[in-house]
């Protein structure tokens, strides 16, 4: 089909206008790469069902309905009851708990996920192991936990001890890497719920209780523990409404509710981190901005290509006239144009590969907590975008020729002298290419400004801004001395945070403010910092005291969302959270509000009024990495400290 006989001509065409071709190739590649990036990220921002569930349309999920309408965990007993409901085929469940883990002699806290033995088969989760009854007391560990606690060594068959009672469990394997970040729990260990009773510890003081009674009590407790979410596969012909009708007959607990599909579990079971609604909106705004800029850039690329090709077609009208005169048909000329663009397309593909790879690698490396990019979807996305670009380039390159043929522009063209039209088009093309370059540069400026506008905050940042330093359990800083080390950093006037200041990958958790008459509930972003951090970034407003072992600092938005009329009213208040351990507090521990700080623009310049709760970073025993900031006047100390790392 395509004749490469004119390879010399091809190269000459490129050589004649190499700068214009380069701008076009680079522009299209950048557009293609940015488009790829936008589409890849969209899954992480807009995904509404757990990534590991193949198809959630045939499932109902259930748990208790909380005060604010969210789904909260229920008991295995309740979930099993649903089996009696007409229309329910089978039920499975999963739940999470904090527990103590002892590896050799080292103790640490971890999250353990319990899944019912039929969980993987019911939800067709291919990436999870099947738990057989014969494999009791066996656990699977997360890839992150395996790396951090076992340094990636062979762990199969090793025994670890769970709970205060040191119940032995044999490691059967390591979970796939995508299970590192499931919901807010980020589990370290997964096991079957059949083993739950083994990990329940019953102490009744000094009284002697028969073993039989203890076993019975454990069994009862295990099915009455409100820590599980249920999944029901429905019989064909039944939907969620049919089940709702049967609810009252099945459950005695009037609060139990059914939800359609699995999306309500997103907070708990979705890959990634649970953001507060405000933060999620900011992420969406940012995504739309990126997409919008990408599309504008794409449009300028197309216009640039179109004017370039119009100009070139007119410039080559004499050549095309000759081809017509010797018998060429429109199809011949279109083939000719296509074959001439293979070098260009090849360059675009190579550039796209390079830029996409660079952008995606950087993005995933810096946002591994939130982003999950699958190589298969990446491959598909990439192939589709290349095909799209291929079609766009061929269509818009051929269009001028097609129009010229259609309107007999070549028949009488016998002169190489540049016409007035050509001259106008050439100028227009140069303008378009300049516009293309300006758009690309503006794009970069907007994106950089978008994230770094926060630098206006102060000139307190220096070149170490955003640098993170690894901290792992096997390295120099073990959990045991983390606190001492952070205390040393504090005394050296170095600021640290558990997440990056801008675009913090902050989890959000539910808080309740304990005002006597009017309790308020809010989902707030959390971040662990030291007091230097708050002092460094608080330019205008910082009321009360800093973070410590008992208390946190709220920002103004968080105080408002928790129902305090003025920030002053929040001082000394007591908060309660469903997941205090994420901040480093113990379960059921009340959290005191020590201070209130201004809203810091954590999500870049467009983010205002994102509620944040700051807790002491020293409370965290498990921290993969943290971020260091310091006043430029303190650069020598900072460099010394960072060098010590």
């Amino acid at each position: 089909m395509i004749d490469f006989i004119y390879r010399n001509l091809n190269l000459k065409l490129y050589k004649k206008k190499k700068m214009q071709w380069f701008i076009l190739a680079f522009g299209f590649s950048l557009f293609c790469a940015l488009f790829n990036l936008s589409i890849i990220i969209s899954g992480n921002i807009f995904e509404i069902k757990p990534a590991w569930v193949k198809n959630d349309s045939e499932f109902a999920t259930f748990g208790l309905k909380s005060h604010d309408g969210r789904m909260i965990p229920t008991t295995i007993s309740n979930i099993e009851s649903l089996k009696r409901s007409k229309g329910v085929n089978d039920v499975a469940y999963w739940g999470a708990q904090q527990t103590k883990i002892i590896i050799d002699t080292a103790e640490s806290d971890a999250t353990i996920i319990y899944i019912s033995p039929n969980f993987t088969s019911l939800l067709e989760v291919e990436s999870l192991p099947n738990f057989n009854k014969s494999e009791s007391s066996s656990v699977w560990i997360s890839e992150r936990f395996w790396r951090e606690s076992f340094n990636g060594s062979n762990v199969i068959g090793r025994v670890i001890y769970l709970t205060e009672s040191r119940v032995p469990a044999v490691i059967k394997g390591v979970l796939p890497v995508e299970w590192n970040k499931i919901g807010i729990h980020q589990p370290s260990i997964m096991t079957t719920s059949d083993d739950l009773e083994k990990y329940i510890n019953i102490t009744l003081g000094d009284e002697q209780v028969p073993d039989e009674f203890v076993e019975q009590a454990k069994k009862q407790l295990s099915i009455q523990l409100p820590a599980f979410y249920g999944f029901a596969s429905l019989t064909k012909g039944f939907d969620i409404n049919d089940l709702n009708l049967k609810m009252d007959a099945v459950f005695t607990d009037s609060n139990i509710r059914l939800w359609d599909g699995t999306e309500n579990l997103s907070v708990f079971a979705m890959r990634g981190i649970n953001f507060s609604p405000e933060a999620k909106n900011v992420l969406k705004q940012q995504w739309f901005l990126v997409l919008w800029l990408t599309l504008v850039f794409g449009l300028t690329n197309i216009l640039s290509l179109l004017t370039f090709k119009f100009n070139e077609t007119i410039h080559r009208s004499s050549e095309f006239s000759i081809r017509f005169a010797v018998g060429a048909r429109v199809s011949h000329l279109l083939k000719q144009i296509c074959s001439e663009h293979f070098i260009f397309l090849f360059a675009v593909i190579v550039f796209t590969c390079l830029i996409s790879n660079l952008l995606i690698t950087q993005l995933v490396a810096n946002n591994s907590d939130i982003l999950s990019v699958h190589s298969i979807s990446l491959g598909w996305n990439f192939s589709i975008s290349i095909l799209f670009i291929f079609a766009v380039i061929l269509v818009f390159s051929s269009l001028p020729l097609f129009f010229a043929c259609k309107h007999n522009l070549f028949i009488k063209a016998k002169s190489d002298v540049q016409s007035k039209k050509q001259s106008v088009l050439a100028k227009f093309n140069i303008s378009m290419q300049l516009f293309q370059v300006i758009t690309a540069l503006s794009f970069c400026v907007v994106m950089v400004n978008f994230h770094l506008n926060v630098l206006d905050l102060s000139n307190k940042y220096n070149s170490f801004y955003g640098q993170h330093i690894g901290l792992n359990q096997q390295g120099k800083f073990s959990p045991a001395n983390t606190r001492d080390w952070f205390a040393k950093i504090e005394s050296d006037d170095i600021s640290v945070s558990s997440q990056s200041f801008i675009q913090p990958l902050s989890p959000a958790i539910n808080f309740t403010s304990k005002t006597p008459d009017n309790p308020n509930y809010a989902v707030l972003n959390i971040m662990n910092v030291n007091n230097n951090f708050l002092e460094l970034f608080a330019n205008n407003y910082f009321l009360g005291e800093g973070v410590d072992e008992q208390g946190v600092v709220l920002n103004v938005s968080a105080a408002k969302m928790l129902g305090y009329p003025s920030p002053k009213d929040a001082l000394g208040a007591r908060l309660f959270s469903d997941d205090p351990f994420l901040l480093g507090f113990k379960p059921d521990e009340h959290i005191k509000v020590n201070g209130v700080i201004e809203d810091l623009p954590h999500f870049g310049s467009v983010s205002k009024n994102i509620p944040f709760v700051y807790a002491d970073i020293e409370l965290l025993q498990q921290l993969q990495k943290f971020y260091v900031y310091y006043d430029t006047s303190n650069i020598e100390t900072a460099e010394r400290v960072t060098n010590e790392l």
Partner: protein
Amino acid sequence: MEVTKKSINLIELNGVSKIFGDRKSGFCALNKIYLTIQNGDFIAIQGPSGCGKSTLLSILGLLDTASEGQYILCGQRVDNLTKYQQAILRNKHIGWIFQNFNLIGDLTVEENIKLPLKYHDSIAKSDYFNLVKEALEKVGLDDKLNSYPTELSGGQQQRVAIARAIVTKPDILIADEPTGNLDSTNAESVFNLLESLNNAGSTVLIVTHDSHIAKRCKRILNMKDGCLVDMGL
């Protein structure tokens, strides 16, 4: 085959007119032309500038279409064909030679001559080289195969253009002022070449202002104001 060719009119124009613009108020470049051209003719078309010579040539060479009238080429009516069909016939039956040679500067002599072959449906790729060689030998430039047009003199460029015109062995060669851009020596040489092609059986139709050249043709058509005033019979 030769007998069949001689037995029919190669070209017949029956009342062909060409009007640019609106039919009522537009410019009439050709006005009811009746013309018959036999196989083996060597015809010169003469006339003052703007009399319609080039328009007539464009219509005869299927680069343009008549506004009215019939055009029969090789026994086939062609004025009502699509552009696609006309392009096929142009490639198959007509060889064009222009005043300014119209070679593509970025292509070598071989590639320029190969162009019509590429657009020909029934010539195998394997024959391209031999046909190009043969055409170049006819015009005496077989040593310039890999040269670029800019490396050749005007006369040589016109010879390459003639080689390109004859490479598909068309029924008729149409030359628009073929010697117009050449000095007298080269003009003589190019005309001799056309003459020899005619002697070998090709039908040649040229537009020329040079009365010496026109006189050497077998037939001279004179045009004035879009009409054929002398059929040269």
